[in-house]
């Protein structure tokens, strides 16, 4: 059952959090034993899951740098998770110290931790919200304070859309988000699939049912549909390592094993 909008978030440290498990896969220590237990089970199902997580993270950074090259200086990162090395504001502010970033996550621990990291950082903020409430995010006073929605925004939906089940209308939600943004805005999406490794990734998806954010894996065509109405940036929806790699070596021999479809679309 979905909690009513006025009800506060639930902080249940006895349930594994995907945000903290993801941190563990990336080599971080911002996690609890319950998260690591889940993370290790997932690793048993998908032994190279650390690489999968890493490839996804690398896509995020390339996408951010792409958007910076496009002149975008404000970002809305939904599903930002536990901040680790190389957060969006760090990358963006290397290019332009005035870049602004609003992080949004459904995990209260991830948000309070982000808030702690962002203390004394006037151009970045972390909010507790749910991707399923696009208007609540867009109308949030902190978002409004930080981001000028009349100018292009980089909307980052990295490893989060698969947490929205079909009955919550993920296509409608994402359309509602980007239609509120100015022309020239970019949307980056990375999404889990079982297309290439149905058994292993299927087991991983099944395990995610133990967390607060179970995964709905989707096909390439389904992921492409998220970009309907946007101009899909070259090379389109591809395996995560294949999206504008910085070097041949970064791609690896089996990019399909990274099991994430990624893409960037531009608002006309």
């Amino acid at each position, binding site marked *: 059952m979905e909690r009513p909008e*006025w*009800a*506060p*978030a*639930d*902080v249940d*440290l006895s349930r594994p959090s995907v945000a*903290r498990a993801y941190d563990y896969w*990336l*080599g*971080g*220590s*911002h*996690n*609890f034993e319950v998260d690591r237990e889940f993370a290790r089970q997932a690793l048993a199902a998908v032994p190279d899951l650390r690489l999968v997580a*890493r490839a996804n*993270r*690398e896509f995020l*950074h390339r996408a951010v740098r792409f958007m910076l090259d496009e002149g975008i200086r404000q970002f809305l990162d939904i599903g930002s998770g*536990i901040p680790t*090395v*190389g957060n969006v504001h760090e*990358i963006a502010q290397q290019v332009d110290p005035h870049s602004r970033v609003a992080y949004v996550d459904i995990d*209260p*621990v*991830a*948000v*309070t*931790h982000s*808030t*702690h*990291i962002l203390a004394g950082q006037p151009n970045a903020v972390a909010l507790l919200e749910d991707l399923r409430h696009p208007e609540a995010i867009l109308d949030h006073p902190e978002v409004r304070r930080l981001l000028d929605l009349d100018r292009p925004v980089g909307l980052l939906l990295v490893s989060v859309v698969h947490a929205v089940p079909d009955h919550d209308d993920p296509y409608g939600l994402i359309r509602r988000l980007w239609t509120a943004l100015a022309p020239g805005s970019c949307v980056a999406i990375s999404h889990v699939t079982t297309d290439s490794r149905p058994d292993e990734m299927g087991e991983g998806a099944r395990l995610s049912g133990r967390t607060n954010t179970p995964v709905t894996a989707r096909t390439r065509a389904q992921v492409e549909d998220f970009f309907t109405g946007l101009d899909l940036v070259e090379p389109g929806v591809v395996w995560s390592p294949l999206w504008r790699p*910085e*070097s041949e*070596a970064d791609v690896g021999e089996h990019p399909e094993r990274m099991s994430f479809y990624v893409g960037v679309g531009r608002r006309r």
Partner: protein
Amino acid sequence: MNDRPAADGADDRPAADGRGVGEFVTAWATALHRAHYVPISAEQRHRIVTGLADRVVTAVLAGPGGPGEGRRIGADLVAAGFGSPEALGGTIAVLTSRLLGDLGVAADPTRTARLNDLLAELATGFTSAAHDHSLRAQDTVRLAALAARTQAEEALRVSEVRFRRFATHDQLTGLPNLTLLTEQLGRLSTAEAPTDRVGVCCLDVDDFAAVNDVLGYQVGDLLLREIAARLGALADGRFDLVARLDSDRFAILVRDTTCAGDVVKIADRALAVLAAPFRVNGTEVPLTVSAGVAEGTVADGGAARLMRAGEIALHWAKADGKATLRLFDQDRSNADAERYRLSAAMPAALRRGEFTAAYQPVTALRSGRLAGVEALARWRHPQLGLLSAARFIELAERTGLVVALGSQLLEQACRQASRWQRIQPGLYVSVNVSVRQLHRTGLAGEVAQILDRTGLPPHLLHLEITEQAVIDLTGVVTQTLAALMQLGVRIVIDDFGVGYANLANLRSLPLYGLKLDASLTRPSAQPARWPGARRPGTDDDFLGTVVSLGHRLGLVVTAEGIETAQQAHRLTAAGCDNGQGWHFGRPVPPDEITAGIVAQQHREAVPPGPELPVIPVQRR
């Protein structure tokens, strides 16, 4: 960060072998990149690794620049983001397998020893830094979890407070609602609470529905808010709360009372603040308020009782004319409850035939003979025993059951009187007719049918009606009385002399007689002589005047309530025709009347002599 200056590097560092160091740097950087992802560009990575490689080369070729340099290099590796086990493994592999070769220097024992020492130190520094890094991360995530939980709890508390306020307060006035009042009362009545006496004052705006109907709900709501504000302003430390129960009903709960007077005082104050005029949109809206007060102990569930008592008292205030205050009184409540129970039991009792008639003799004063009987309603209540009419007739009047009850009694009385004709022809029966019966069309028709069925001659049925019943002669009443008269039934005014007698109406009615109220029969309580009175009027003067009034109008005059021989004598002297009262006989079952008639006939048939045997009286 430990940005130590590189060692002076003047000794045996290969002078022109930059290419060798470069290859080593590339190999190390690649190993690190493969082992651990750090979101930096290849150039940044190369620059970091070059700096570290310089320090490693210096340490191996020239000896460590100082104690702990190996440790610092390991720590700096972690600080640059390459903190994974794979990064350490890759570093050790590259340093052991490639460093000396890439530099093009011989692996002499000194260099090998330095390299081994360096690796040992580097591994120690690396793991130590990684461990610290982990511990710091654990600290921050735990603090974050703690903060998140605190925030969630705070948010939950806020939302609970908001929800609770919504559930326990009235939205219109902001006052506590019935839920909260009940809760508070409940709390006060639990054993551990120190309070043992509590007062409740229930308030209700009189005829508030009319305000809403006439002035509209918006004005009504404004008034309710104003009332709430005035009552709320009354509250002081002794008030537990002022609540709005529903629509125009409010309540004040008072703790730690000593007696009912404490609450009455507060209720008086409440009525006083509400008595000041109310103005809405510049117009004065007159309002009055009724209050019911109850006070008592609240232990052992007494709270609910107290609340009900307050409501009952409020109900009394309304019934007693509104705009007033009533204090709950257990006796009155018991009487109310008793009356209610009787009232509720009456329809079934009527069906079961529990209502019967008792008959009281009416004696001709001059002859001393039995002239007639008055039929009086009795209720043979299965639990309470025989109840006299005073206990239930008023209730029957109120519920309207008096109509059905009256018909049943009328039929019983006529049937009984008809039987008595066989032993005393001409004995009449007097039956009371209520106002309600008289206002019903069809009474005359019903009487005619009863007379038909029972065979009682119409003139032997006397119907007693009160002065009150004929004070307003509407069409139905006049028609009914005229129809009864045409049947030959005799109409008698009951309780004459104590009600409002509309003489003009009496004049136009086809009356047969007057029945003087018992209070005229007895001596008056006040002295008849008043200072300054022009003419002394004695009790006898009054009596004589009333009797002669009746006689002048051609009416038969009967006196009620005669209890002594002296009274009987006085009324005879005054010229009264008939007398009724305990002196002549109490209301009794019909068999006793029969016995009385038989006894009278024996006395008259046999000349005075020895006592006749007593005829046994049969009782049902």
